[in-house]
């Protein structure tokens, strides 16, 4: 039976470690979840939450980010929701291969690809009112 853990944090970088800590601790409750899968989850959630925090960078006020952790028998599902301006995930600017000399000019562009690699499933839904990222990590890596 699924159990839910919800965490709400201010959209500030100082709270990023809190998000990672809570999600990893929640996943650790299931003793059969291996450490390497929890590490995958921790980094994937960090990427999603980093993007959520950065989406609020130009906004004023006390925007908050909701992180919902759904603990299933064989998986952990995490949703990260922000109230930022949103973006079109289908039209992300392509990033040059890391070996291309021009790649050094851009420090960013690693986050979403890394998140998609580490999570078994990653879904991004975005609108002008905010973005929701759903990540699924199974006990055993798939694909």
């Amino acid at each position, binding site marked *: 039976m699924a159990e839910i853990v919800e965490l709400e944090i201010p959209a500030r970088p100082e709270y990023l470690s809190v998000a990672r800590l809570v999600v990893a601790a929640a996943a650790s409750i299931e003793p059969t979840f291996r450490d390497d899968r929890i590490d995958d989850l921790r980094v994937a959630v960090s990427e999603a939450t980093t993007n959520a925090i950065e989406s609020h960078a130009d906004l004023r006020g006390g925007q908050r980010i909701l992180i919902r952790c759904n603990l299933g028998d064989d998986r952990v599902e995490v949703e990260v929701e922000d109230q930022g301006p949103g973006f079109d995930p289908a039209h992300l600017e392509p990033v040059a291969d*890391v070996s291309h000399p021009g790649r050094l000019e851009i420090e960013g562009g690693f*986050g979403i690809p890394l998140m998609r690699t580490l999570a078994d499933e990653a879904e991004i839904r975005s609108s002008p009112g905010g973005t929701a990222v759903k990540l699924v990590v199974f006990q055993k890596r798939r694909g």
Partner: protein
Amino acid sequence: LRLSASRDTGRSSVSFGIDVSHQADWVVLHVSGELDLSSAPAFRHRVVSTVAEGGHRLVVDLTAVDHLDSIGIGLILGAQKRVRTHGGVVRVVADAPRICRVLELTDLARIVPVYSSVVAALADGPGAGVSTPSGAE
């Protein structure tokens, strides 16, 4: 279970730090804690000040880092870009599987040499990771 972190009371529980040592003509940045969006300004500031002081051959020691994500990868790339303009080089040291995995998945090791110890990084030939200031390999 529902948790809510307060703006007034929330603090990062993992301290971040950078200790600097000088070995031969290398500057070794011993990074500890979590290298992420929160610690990025401190790391960037340290690299900028090190380069300004003439340190163009950097070893970034990640063996005491608990967490590395894409922000940290970007910071290392940024350091590489900065020292290259002075003909310098960056080498990375990492030994923990969770850190090495991020380095591998982002292909960083294709442009920044990665070693398992500071000793190994310093012992490698002077040409490893060195490129022209223009960035062309």
